[in-house]
């Protein structure tokens, strides 16, 4: 069970290797990536801040719960902190399982759960300002309709 909060770039291959198992028929890997736009605003870069020790503790609890709840083989969760440019990877979650249904379900659940309770915060920086994003739903709301 690979769990890490780090300011170094994340390598999905490391997460895949960490969950590999002779009993695994399926591995699902999710990457959270810095996109150039949110809620209709052009993003210049993001800054992630964590409470690292508690974040790793929560991530480990989530990984253990995912293994038990979905009957999967192994999980890895990596989260990056610091300044991230557009296109860089902020999150890697990987799940190995016998068959694909559990791998997809567990990986999705891990990401949802991480956004709900792992103490990590994102600041969006635009050309003309910045803002700490409060709560996961701020990111998942659809962009507002363009003005008529």
């Amino acid at each position, binding site marked *: 069970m690979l769990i890490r909060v780090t300011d170094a770039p994340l390598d999905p291959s490391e997460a895949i290797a960490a969950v590999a198992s002779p009993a695994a028929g399926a591995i699902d890997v999710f990457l*959270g990536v810095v996109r150039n736009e949110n809620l209709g605003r052009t993003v210049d870069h993001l800054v*992630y*801040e*964590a*409470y690292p*020790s*508690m*974040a790793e*503790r929560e991530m480990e609890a989530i990984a253990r719960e995912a293994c038990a709840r979905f009957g999967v083989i192994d999980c890895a969760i990596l*989260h990056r902190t610091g300044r991230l440019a557009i296109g860089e990877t*902020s*999150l890697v979650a990987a799940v190995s399982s016998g068959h694909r249904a559990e791998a997809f379900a567990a990986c999705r659940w891990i*990401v949802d759960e*991480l*956004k*709900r*309770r*792992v*103490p*990590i*915060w*994102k*600041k969006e920086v635009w050309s003309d300002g910045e803002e*700490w*994003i*409060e*709560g*996961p739903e*701020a*990111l998942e709301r659809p962009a507002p309709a363009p003005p008529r």
Partner: protein
Amino acid sequence: MTVLLFAGVAERVGARRLAVEVAPGDRVRDVRDRLVAAHPQLEPFLPTLRYALDEEYADEDTPVPAGATLALIPPVSGG
């Protein structure tokens, strides 16, 4: 006790770490109220603030052990 501040809360207060006096029998909310009295900038964060004692989420009602670390956790936005 040590209180840890993060993200918007830390920026607003201008500190990432505060020292607060704790009396025997204090609960999280007592420490919180003392913090708000000393740093009224915390007020707007209260409706959505969560708390962690020694790296575990805690209620406002949780008693504060001697030597514990309290963290103020604004709504998280990792991922």
